[in-house]
C-alpha cells in the first residue's frame, strides 16, 4: 500500500511517501491511523489527533470507518485550506 502525506502531516512524519504492508487486522482507515501512530515519534506527533486527519483512497475522500483497499494509494493530510 502506497502512503502519501501532505502539509503538516508530511512535515511531521518527515517524508512525502512510503510503501507499507500493514498486518491483516488493519482493516479500516482508523485501524491504519492507529497502526501508523505507533511507528515512531514523527508519526505519533503527526497523528496525535487522528480524528482531524483527512484521508483519501485513490484520490477520493473516505471516512475513517471506510475499509482499506487491498492495494492503491492512501493519502493522509490535514483539513484542506484551498480556495
Amino acid at each position, binding site marked *: 500500500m502506497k502512503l502519501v502525506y501532505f502539509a503538516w502531516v508530511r512535515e511531521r512524519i518527515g517524508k512525502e511517501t512510503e510503501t507499507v504492508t500493514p498486518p491483516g487486522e488493519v482493516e479500516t482507515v482508523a485501524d491504519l491511523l492507529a497502526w501508523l501512530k505507533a511507528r515512531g515519534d514523527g508519526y505519533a506527533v503527526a497523528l496525535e489527533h487522528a480524528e482531524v486527519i483527512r484521508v*483519501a483512497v485513490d484520490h477520493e475522500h473516505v471516512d475513517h470507518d471506510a475499509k482499506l483497499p487491498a492495494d492503491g494509494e492512501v493519502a493522509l493530510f490535514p483539513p*484542506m*485550506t484551498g480556495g
Partner: protein
Amino acid sequence: MKNRCQPLVRVQAEDFDIAAEIDRLTAGRKDVGAVVTFTGRCRDEDGKLAALELEHYPGMAEAEIGRIASEAAERWPLTGLTVIHRFGKLLPAENIVLVVAASTHRKAALEAADFLMDYLKSRAPFWKKEHPAGGDTGHWVEAKAADEEALGRWRK
C-alpha cells in the same frame, strides 16, 4: 439534467487571464445571459504576510475539483463552467483561484459560483502555508469551522 455543460478544470502554477476565460465561455454565444467570475487573491494581512505557499495533491486536486464542478453542473443549468486553482508560492495581490460560471439566468450562475467556492475551500486538496513578513518560519493555515459549516447550506 441532460444538457449539462462539461466543466473545464485546471490546476497550475502560472497565473490565469480572467478576460480570456470569460471569452472562452461566451464568445459567439447568444444563449448566455449571465456570467459570474469569482477570483480569490492573496492578501498581505496588513503587511504581516510576505507570501503564501500552496501545496496540493497532484492528481487528486484535478479529480476532486472535477467532481465538485460536475456536481454544480448537475444542480444548476449552466452553459459553461471553468475552475482554475493555482499552487506554489504566491505573493500578496496575486491570484489564487478563479471560478467562471455562465448560464441563461442570473441566479444559476451566482449560486453555482458560491457553491463552488464553499466546496473548494473545504474539499479541494490544497493547503496554505503563510510566510510572515520578516523571515520567520512559515505556518500552516488552520481550517475554519465556518468554512465547513458553509457546506451545510448546500446539502439537499
